[in-house]
């Protein structure tokens, strides 16, 4: 029976400081380990980090590419998953993120793209409250309701935006 697989690409350039926490958050995912793979694409070798990547059973790819895009492309080329998602080395996933991603794609075969909201943490991993002025500047008008964009929505948008049509 066909089983969907998620590939998580972790691009990392020079920065080691937060990578262990990112990897730990992937290892702690509630989604069954046979439903996702992790591909770490980084430009350095580090005994502690490499040991942990191997222990967790993640793929460890060495890349000379200095760009985020280059590392993402290398990861995509090696990915076996039908769904690709990403984790930058300084960010973390909530423990249920991959489970939620899996559920959403599993229940709707037409779904091609999924995006979720974020909470904010400081360099020590502590949650930053949303009324913090810096967070306010970053999030601005992020929608905090679920949104779906169906193929027909583009036509709907066009209709709704007729009055502000300037460049067409």
């Amino acid at each position, binding site marked *: 029976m066909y089983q969907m697989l998620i*590939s998580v690409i972790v691009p990392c350039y020079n*920065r080691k400081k*937060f990578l262990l926490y990112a990897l730990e958050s992937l290892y702690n995912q509630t989604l069954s380990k046979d439903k996702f793979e992790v591909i770490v694409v980084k430009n350095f070798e580090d005994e502690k980090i490499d040991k942990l990547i191997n222990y967790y059973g993640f793929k460890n790819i060495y890349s000379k590419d200095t760009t*985020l*895009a280059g590392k*993402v*492309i290398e990861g*995509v080329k090696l*990915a076996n*998953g039908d*769904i*690709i*998602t*990403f*984790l930058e080395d*300084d*960010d*973390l*996933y*909530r423990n*249920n*993120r991959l489970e*939620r991603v899996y559920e959403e794609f599993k229940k709707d075969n037409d*779904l*091609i*793209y*999924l*995006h*979720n*909201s*974020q*909470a*904010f943490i*400081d*360099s020590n991993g502590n949650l930053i409250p949303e009324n913090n002025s*810096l967070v306010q*500047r*970053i999030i*601005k*008008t*992020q*929608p*905090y*309701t*679920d*949104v*779906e*964009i*169906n193929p027909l*929505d*583009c*036509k*709907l*948008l*066009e209709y*709704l*935006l007729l009055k502000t049509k*300037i*460049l*067409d």
Partner: protein
Amino acid sequence: MQIVRILIIKNKNIRLNISSTAVKKEILINNIKHFYRLNLILDFSIFLFSLLSNKKLKHVAEKLTLYRIHEQNVSAFTSSNVSFEEYLKRRQNIIKERYISWKYLYKNFSNKFHCSACKKRIILEYLNYKFKYVIFSKREETKINIKIREIYIFILLNKANLNSIIIPILLFIPDNIKYKALEIIYLKYKTM
């Protein structure tokens, strides 16, 4: 609901984030050749390429990703102990790269979208970074021509908000005054 749907495409402040993105592999494979040119706007590019596929996209409100704000990331340039000169240098590099990426999207993709909101967003970001690139660079460093028509479109698309008026003004003032103004803005945010 319709208004929110428009927001996700139209609002230039929507915070798309690569660590919060999941996408079918085919979208990436089909567009892989473009990614090198879109390095710093990968999150938005993946969203746009998905939109072009004419299939379903979804945003969930659950905060499933923890985004770290720290000294080295872009969002925190003015929040930490970074000097104005260092801030300026970092901003210049990032703005230049983003300008090149948005220009690439504008030249190659803006006509592929049937939806006016997508076209507007691409044009707005392209002009925004084009202007900022000129503003953050010394006059002799850039040879970019700004057309009056572009300023008109920029202000109009931004519905003449304060930023859309200040940015074009900064284009035409001498470097020494411009940098003083940027320093004031930098200090204002630093103390926030």
